[in-house]
């Protein structure tokens, strides 16, 4: 209970509750992960006959020497940095607004949810249209003449824009669910304590929303590090002009499914995994300092 210590029995009981999840995750995530970790060390490997010629760091050194990998790494970091904070903050802002209104609330909530249900193909088509150099809505809006998708300087920015936009829906829903759980007494108390709307947000809502924010941030980091579909669809099956939108996941895909360099792809997967782990770990550390990572107790 409150101060109970784990015992063998309580561990067994807990394992019963965890068993279904652990079983599935073990078989369908952990096991393949381990095999692909192993594969990243294979050299002269025949993927189909499973013939392993040797074991070593050759695949990693391949990555190290491949300029495309460096490009992918850089793009991925820029991409994550561009998307994650923006999407989390925007989603929070919109969720807060949606949480305040009553009139037409259902309508608005549904509308903001739309991008999430809309198929990625359709979205990339539409954005392809919005981002056209001539008559594209974005250019009309900003009075520019940028060929967003075909100019290497802007392509990554365009993907970032699209992904922020598409990620909003999920995060808004999660934030709305989180906001719904916050006891309004705290808002009331803070109002009485003289907190302005903004102060209430930063001093009360935000910290109380932290468990949800942790979830959303971690999820956003994880999914955006693994971005692939949007790029594939937006650039018609390429990694953008001059590889401008080549991300690690795209690189992995190319190595695995196109160039048939399976161990190299596995090595890239290892790097990607380690990278996400690192960034998420940092985020966790940050949240942990705020004593909320572990929840309420």
């Amino acid at each position, binding site marked *: 209970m409150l101060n109970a210590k784990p015992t063998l029995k309580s561990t067994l009981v807990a394992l019963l509750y965890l068993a279904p999840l652990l079983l599935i995750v073990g078989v369908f995530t952990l096991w393949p992960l381990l095999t692909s970790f192993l594969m990243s060390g294979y050299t002269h490997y025949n993927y189909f006959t499973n013939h392993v010629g040797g074991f070593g760091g050759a695949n990693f050194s391949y990555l190290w020497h491949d300029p495309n990998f460096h490009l992918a790494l850089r793009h991925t970091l820029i991409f994550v940095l561009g998307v994650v904070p923006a999407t989390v903050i925007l989603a929070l802002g919109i969720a807060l607004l949606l949480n305040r209104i009553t009139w037409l609330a259902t309508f608005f909530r549904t509308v903001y949810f739309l991008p999430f249900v809309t198929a990625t193909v359709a979205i990339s088509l539409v954005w392809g249209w919005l981002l056209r150099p001539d008559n594209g809505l974005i250019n009309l809006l900003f009075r520019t003449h940028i060929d967003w998708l075909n100019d290497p300087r802007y392509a990554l920015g365009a993907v970032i824009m699209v992904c922020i936009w598409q990620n909003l829906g999920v995060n808004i829903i999660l934030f709305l669910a989180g906001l719904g759980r916050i006891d309004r007494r705290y808002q009331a108390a803070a109002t009485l304590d003289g907190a302005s709307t903004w102060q209430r947000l930063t001093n009360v809502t935000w910290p109380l929303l932290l468990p949800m924010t942790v979830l959303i941030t971690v999820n956003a980091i994880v999914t955006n590090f693994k971005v692939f579909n949007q790029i594939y669809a937006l650039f018609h099956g390429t990694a953008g002009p001059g590889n401008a939108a080549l991300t690690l996941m795209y690189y992995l895909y190319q190595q695995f499914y196109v160039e048939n360099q399976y161990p190299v792809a596995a090595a890239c997967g290892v790097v990607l995994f380690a990278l996400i782990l690192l960034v998420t770990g940092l985020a966790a550390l940050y949240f942990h300092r705020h004593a909320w990572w572990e929840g309420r*107790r």
Partner: protein
Amino acid sequence: MQVKLTDITLSYPSQPPVLTHLNLTVANGELVALLGPSGSGKTTLLNLLAGLLTPSAGTLTFDGTDVTQQDPRQRHIGMVFQDYALYPHLSVLANIAFPLKMAHVKRPERRAQARHYAQLVHVDDQLTKLPRALSGGQQQRVALARALVKHPALLLLDEPLSNLDAALRVELRDEIRRLQRLTGVTTLFVTHDQTDALRIADRIVVLANGQIQQVGTGEQLYRHPHTQFVAEFIGTPRLNCVPYATAAPFLTIPGLPTARTLGIRSEALTLVPATATPQPILAQLTATVTRQVVIGRDRQTNLATPWGSLLSTTLPAMPAGQPVQLAVTARGSFLFDAAGHCIWDGDCDA
């Protein structure tokens, strides 16, 4: 700040109204205790004053300005919520300092102030804990400190002492009174403890059935209740009530045709005095002691009388079964009509 409620009606969605056509004025600098049965709308009334609820009808003015629709934030209110509403993510110190932070008081200054108030309510040894690691009473005291720290223009306290032990309760009650006197802040104070109310309030407001039942000092309410409800509600032990029809034959005062109930305070039931007292006597009764309980310096005696079971607090120690001759003094006795209005009161008419 003078607070005035005019013709306030309020109901929760799809519920019968909690407050109906309620009128109340609290003078500037007054400390008013709000008494009333559980569920009578005391918290509701405070929330209304705080601006957390908007009345369905009526107006609320502060110093003459209509604030019915004003934002709670602009009202400069200090409030202790009945369930404290401490910020779960902030330490005790940060909780207390929160209103100052909102007012952009500099950090060292606000920590010093918060520390001061923490000391006042004796939680200065818990400053770094989070609310969930505090005992109930400690939480309540933190809430009190938080309400006091910002020197509000109006102080609303919803049972701020209910979870404290007697000694601390008296201390903090007196502290609240002292601070209130010092700063002259208008204060509304919900309490179930009549001693608290009687002891520190300038006036007491009794709320029941959506209406203010009576407003007055503790003594006024106790001695001159307007209604049977107030008479029964104020004072422990509870008023002895006897149907007027039963009592009438015994009474020394002229009959009142509209009277329905005779109310007798426990101290108005005395032994027939050996010496002549200045107190007029309403009736004399023969009774038997059924039980005696000593509570601190009080001795409560249950008596079997022709009027039914009565309770007295004036009798000396005596064994159960002992027959006694009782006098009902006029002072402390009331007559109520069918509607519960007090139509005769031994104190005034004496």
